[in-house]
């Protein structure tokens, strides 16, 4: 049984068929990349998994529990965190308050404090800026905050949507290093990226999306050598 299993998923925005019956799976401990052009449906898939968008048809099973009928706010406590596109930190709240909201569904105060210390260890800059409001952080720092906030729920899988968007090349490398670290410490990662080269370089397997369908899938390194992928997504 896979950790996350998506079958025949169809999503509509009004009359527009955004996801046209896709199936894929994520195994425990993997980094899975979903790559594809703008409008291919990458973000929609993540939003459907965490319940922000309703599925029209198909199933999403996470640790053998059906997610399509689960309200969005109940999914995080099942062990799934989502770092949304555009980071979406709470700009008017402080870094610390943002992190604490990440632990909203957890009760044990001592454990929460432990988690916050671990996040500060991983992102020392967040510790420096803990009482600053999140809106004053740079894009890269906000990305770190969004990731730290997701880690605060102690997820077994973390969905990341375009973590490199709008960041300087230096930050992009740092963010991808951190994703690998997070994965090594035992968290499964489902990564959506437009930066296909970077995503494929750290992923185990990847799915290539084209207008709501999976066009290609397989081992990430093999996909990197695929002529079609090279031409369309790697700019070679």
């Amino acid at each position, binding site marked *: 049984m896979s950790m996350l299993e998506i079958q025949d998923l169809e999503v509509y925005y009004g009359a527009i068929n955004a996801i046209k019956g896709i199936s894929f799976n994520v195994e425990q401990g993997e980094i899975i990349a979903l790559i594809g052009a703008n409008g291919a449906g990458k973000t929609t898939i993540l939003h459907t998994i*965490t319940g*922000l968008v309703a599925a029209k048809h198909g199933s999403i099973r996470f640790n053998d529990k059906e997610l399509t009928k689960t309200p969005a706010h109940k999914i995080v406590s099942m062990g799934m965190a989502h770092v949304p596109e*555009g980071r*979406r930190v*709470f700009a008017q709240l402080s870094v610390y308050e943002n992190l604490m*909201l990440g632990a909203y569904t957890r009760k044990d105060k001592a454990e929460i404090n432990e988690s916050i210390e671990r996040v500060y260890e991983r992102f020392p800059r967040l510790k420096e800026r803990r009482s600053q409001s999140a809106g004053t952080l740079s894009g890269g720092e906000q990305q770190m905050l969004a990731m730290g906030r997701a880690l605060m729920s102690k997820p077994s899988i973390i969905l990341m949507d375009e973590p490199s968007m709008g960041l300087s090349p230096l930050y992009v490398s740092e963010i991808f290093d951190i994703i690998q670290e997070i994965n090594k410490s035992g968290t499964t990662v489902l990564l959506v990226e437009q930066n296909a080269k970077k995503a494929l370089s750290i992923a185990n397997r990847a799915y290539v999306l084209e207008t709501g369908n999976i066009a290609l899938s397989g081992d990430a390194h093999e996909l990197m050598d695929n002529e079609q992928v090279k031409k369309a997504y790697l700019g070679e």
Partner: protein
Amino acid sequence: MMSFVSYLVNGLSLGSIYALIALGYTMVYGIAKMLNFAHGDIIMVGGYAALITMATTWCPVWLAIVIAVVVCTVLGVVIEKVAYKPLRGAPPLAVLITAIGVSYLLQNVALLTQTANPKTFTSIAAGAPPFLLVFEGKAPLFFTAAADSPYGDLKPVLTISMETFLAIVVSIVIMVLLTLFINKTKAGKAMLACSEDKGAAQLMGINVNGTITLTFAIGSALAAVAAVLMCSTYPQITPYTGSMPGIKAFVAAVFGGIGSIPGAMIGGVLLGVIEQLSKAYISSQLSDAIVFLVLIIVLVVRPTGILGRKINEKV
């Protein structure tokens, strides 16, 4: 000079009541992104609830206030569930028109059951002696609540009624408690998170619908307190009692920056003071016009209100 202080105190008192009502407007707007125009009529319902319970022989004043708060809280939650929740995601205009419809519904139910004749509201502080301010020679000021002044012939220079005093004190206490609740508790933080980004709040595990319900409950409870304070100060109630204070409080919320909690407090108090001072020094008929004129000026100079933030839409 003392008459100015007296007007000022009355203004602060009226303004505190506006602030309590404005908090309901601004919190609901901040979280549900809708203008609940039925909010003013919840005040009216609270007033009648207190009036009816106080008229019975068995009910002490404190219990009447509690009953008014409970009635309004339940009413606010029911209105949200029945009228507004099905429209979540509908165009804002549909929600706005529904709110106006709920407002008329409440007024007309009150007309049917309570008739249009004004009823006299017994003040919750009925019989309580006012506070007197007395100068004794060059000595400092003295406040005394005694009906028979121990100062003999000395005439008080300033009289503050118990109702006026209560409105200010109760409002301050409530605003402090509310601020603590919002900033220190988990539920309060959830409200702030929802007002900024509902989607992201859901990803944190926050129940957005539950938070909206809680917001309506708190706003309506505050309206009930405002109702009791207002009807005690201006002891008359009709089915339309809530509409003008409701509109004024809405103005106060916009004035302070709609969506901002401290903004609603400042806006409410300022509005009350402006209204009382213009009644005293300019014209009592024109005072409402002046209030709205000030609103227009503030919005021209600072469209987001005093404490309102500009919303930067990131693409």
